[in-house]
């Protein structure tokens, strides 16, 4: 696969999908060739071969979708004051940022839209997924069980949001799948510890407690990895029943 227009690029190349919230930042990416991430607020995975851009509301026709990506050339650390010298009075002027230097913007074969115009922070993914994704939720790389469920939901026409934050202020805590129904919201959490039996690997994302899910107004379905592996049809049936019990799916999620 040759996606960058340069040498051979393996499909497993890492991609970081980042958010573009302003036309100015898009112009910086396009003409000056860089993007910034606050060092102290950088996601758990910042390293990547490519940067892709999820454009939001200000981009009108191109908004709420990933349209462009670009090979990463370098990561530098610099203060905001150095990166944006015309904003010396900005409250974070002295904060340190990753300045991610990129090559030319490349247009994806087709946009990757968010059907529900959702807010995201960062999505670590692969070039293969980026080039094949039909919608934003296809980008997340989950564990084996999560991926199985996602494909099963898609086959059933069950439109879910993946990695949906429980609270907007704390995107670390997120639901594996979120269903927005006419009479409420359904959260699905898949309990996995490790892909390897008998080895305990600490989860990358913190555990979400049942109480927090319920307190935020969600109906929780917790599925164990054994259930998903051994009884996927039953998991699907439970989900379908729950969606039906909540009046069926809404077309768009409340923002």
């Amino acid at each position, binding site marked *: 696969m040759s996606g960058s227009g340069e*040498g051979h690029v393996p499909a497993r190349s890492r991609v970081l999908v980042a958010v573009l919230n302003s036309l100015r930042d898009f112009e910086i990416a396009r003409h000056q060739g860089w993007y910034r991430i606050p*060092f102290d607020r950088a996601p758990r995975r910042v390293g990547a071969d490519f940067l892709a851009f999820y454009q939001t509301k200000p981009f009108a026709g191109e908004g709420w979708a990933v349209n462009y990506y670009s090979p990463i050339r*370098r*990561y530098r*650390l610099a203060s905001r004051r150095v990166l944006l010298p015309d904003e010396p009075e900005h409250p974070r002027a002295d904060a340190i940022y990753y300045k991610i230097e990129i090559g030319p913007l490349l247009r994806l074969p087709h946009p990757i839209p968010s059907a529900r115009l959702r807010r995201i922070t960062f999505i670590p993914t692969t070039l293969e997924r980026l080039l094949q994704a039909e919608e934003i939720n296809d980008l997340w790389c989950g564990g084996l069980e999560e991926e199985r469920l996602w494909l099963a939901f898609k086959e059933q026409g069950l439109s879910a949001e993946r990695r949906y934050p429980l609270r907007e202020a704390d995107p670390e805590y997120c639901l594996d799948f979120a269903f927005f129904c006419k009479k409420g919201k359904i959260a699905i959490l898949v309990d996995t510890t490790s892909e*390897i039996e008998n080895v*305990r*690997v600490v989860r990358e994302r913190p555990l979400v407690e049942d109480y927090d899910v319920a307190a935020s107004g969600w109906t929780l379905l917790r599925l164990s990895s054994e259930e998903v592996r051994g009884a996927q049809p039953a998991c699907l049936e439970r989900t379908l029943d729950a969606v039906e019990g909540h009046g069926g799916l809404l077309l768009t999620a409340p923002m």
Partner: protein
Amino acid sequence: MRLGFPVKVLGQPGLKSHDTRRWQNYPHLSVSLAYLRDIFLYLDRQDIRMYRMAADLAPYASHPDLPGFHHQIEECTRELAELGKMADDFDLRLSFHLPATTVLNALDEDTARQGANQVRIHTAILDGLGLGPEAVVVGHVGGVYGDKDSALARFVERYRQLPPRVRRRLVLENDDGRFSVADTVWIHQETGIPLVFDPLHFQNHNPEGMSTAEALEHCLRSWPPGIRAKMHFSSPRTAMRLVERKGGDQRSTSRLLRAPRPRQHSDFIDPFQFCSFVREARRQELPEFDVMLEAKAKDLALLHLREQVARFAPEITAE
């Protein structure tokens, strides 16, 4: 005692150890450092305090035909310093292992010069990270070239030619077929270079018939006072392997079972072998040491061993 693992993370998919792009795609040390930062966060989550970084962290940094890549370390001064602070905050002991192409005692001067350059690059990265003296670059003696005494002497000579700041970080490991612990001990006596003990290599190549206890003691006591020694540990593979072999026409393939070779690493570490080894070292009242685990299951082998040690030998504290 810290336990560490080399390079590749298996416990969480998608954590790359370094920028693996080819030169045409402009790989850079700074990209490797961004990947490394993500790995450090993972290590901290798993409470792993020792890690061997990829030897190719600075891609093509010593490639003679690609001078455009030769200044990456200087270009990353700030990024290295910040990552070093993170390593310090996480109490991470970091190291490099020189690639097999680094042959300090080569007969050919160009190859030897290239080897010395490799050592310089790796030590410069550790210096850039601002790490203490426990962060080392591990290497082997090199080639025999039909005359072991001369090969040993040549290593000593070339080692002495390295700048002091490079020598401070270089340590020497016994190998499994050419230079034994007795050989590395001789080099240590000549130069003072600290020694990394690899018991599996030792079992494979110990023509002097040295005892394990003696070999371990020589290596652990070779480290300067105040710097904790480190050693390698692996279990020999015992499992049968199914291998595919291409036919003469390069199209047909045949499958055959292959018995393990004694130099191969197993997927995981034998916990009983490990516990016995550590108990014996403690019984001898040898200096404390950290252990770099060399197993095919990488971090998963470490996490598994740690649980096994806690179960079977709770008196051994393995971080």
